[in-house]
């Protein structure tokens, strides 16, 4: 009976997920597509929870429901009402449909065959055996920040590159309409709460699902809320602080990596005794830089006085002769 109920739940969840995905991709109205996409993000958080991946449910909830929803909604202002209709000729459309269907069937066969063939090598055994050495007790954080520290370092670099492109491309987006008192009243209690929760998520990441990315995205959501609630009163960070915030995550990561290299001749090979504290230092710095990066990515452009900051450094470069970044 219990298995039956679990299967009913799984099948309905999967069918709903596929229906949402299908409607998001094939509806004409842009607004409906984005709303269904946000709904799919929420549903995905529940799917991750069902598949016993609480870290991902947390990340999907924060990023899926929070950041990417806000990003897409603010992007809609640039495409307000153009119908989303594919202009391909029916012939090409037919070919695309057939080819993707064939690919999907092939992939389903591959997955079916793969799962039935053998259970395959499970890495969780090695992770659990190495956990006491890793300095944290949450296996996902151990994998992210100790066993695969390179991967996380480069991921921070990817986020930074994405934000730098956003900054170089456009001016800051026009400010929004003056917001009502209620919204500002709400932010008085909600933003501090978001910041406290972000700190909690950062701290809890060592022994339970949480960590730098979810905490950083929470902070970014708080900043986005502040920006939406107080559009006029936008005192920009001064730009030096903003640049430091953006880079501090990678900077600390590499610094600790080099320091570890000097001690036990391997980049990012943490000595077990200090691993816990080192990971916490790296995570704090990563949280700050992810928050700054996602907030700037949401804003969609470089702050107003970014130019003259560049101009001064550029003028130094011309007459000073040394190159600038």
């Amino acid at each position, binding site marked *: 009976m219990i298995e039956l109920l*679990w299967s009913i739940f*799984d*099948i309905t969840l*999967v069918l709903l997920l*596929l229906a949402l*995905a*299908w409607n*998001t*991709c094939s509806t004409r109205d*842009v607004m409906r*597509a984005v709303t269904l*996409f946000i709904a*799919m993000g929420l549903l995905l958080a529940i799917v991750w929870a069902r*598949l*016993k*991946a609480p870290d*991902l449910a947390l*990340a*999907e909830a924060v*990023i899926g429901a929070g*950041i*990417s929803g806000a*990003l*897409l909604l603010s*992007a809609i202002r*640039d*495409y307000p009402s153009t119908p*989303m209709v*594919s202009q*391909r000729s029916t012939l090409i459309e037919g070919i*695309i449909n057939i080819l*993707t*269907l064939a*690919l*999907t069937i092939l*992939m389903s066969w591959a*997955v*079916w065959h*793969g799962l039935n063939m053998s259970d395959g090598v499970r*890495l*969780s055994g090695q992770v659990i055996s190495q956990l006491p050495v890793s300095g944290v007790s949450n296996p*996902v954080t*151990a*994998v*992210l920040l100790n066993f695969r520290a390179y*991967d996380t370092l480069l*991921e921070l670099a990817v*986020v930074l590159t*994405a*934000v730098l*492109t*956003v900054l170089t*491309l*456009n001016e800051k987006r026009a400010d929004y309409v003056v917001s009502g008192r209620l919204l500002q009243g709400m932010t008085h209690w909600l933003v501090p709460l978001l910041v406290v929760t972000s700190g909690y998520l950062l701290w809890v990441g060592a022994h339970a699902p949480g960590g730098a*990315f979810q905490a950083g995205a929470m902070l970014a959501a708080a900043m986005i809320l502040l920006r939406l609630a107080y559009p006029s009163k936008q005192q920009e960070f001064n730009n030096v602080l903003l640049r430091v915030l953006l880079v501090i995550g990678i900077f600390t990561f590499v610094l600790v990596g080099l320091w570890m290299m000097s001690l036990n001749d391997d980049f990012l090979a943490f000595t077990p005794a200090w691993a816990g504290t080192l990971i916490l230092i790296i995570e704090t710095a990563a949280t700050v830089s*992810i928050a700054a*990066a996602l907030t700037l*990515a949401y804003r*969609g*452009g470089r702050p107003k006085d970014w130019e003259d900051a560049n101009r001064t450094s550029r003028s130094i470069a011309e007459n000073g002769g040394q190159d600038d970044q």
Partner: protein
Amino acid sequence: MISEQLLYSLAGVGLFGIGLRATLLHHMLLPRLLALNVCGAGVFLIFIAIAYGGLKIMADPVPHALVLTGIVVAVSATAMALALGRRLEALDDE
């Protein structure tokens, strides 16, 4: 009944198919971006379905770490694509 692992991984494949079809079909940036994110979600679902070990056993943490990184990168890629889109719009208007 078929195992949860197979059900969810086939759902992942389905999501990928739907996303891929829409990415190829649409011209404008926003629908293609949504479709690409659906593709990404499909791949992540296949990953996590394979990592799932049943109600009793602990799920495999390594794919969880990979997909967590994937989610963060997907968001920053979406932000970048939107900024590029805005820039193109601005250039077209000039």
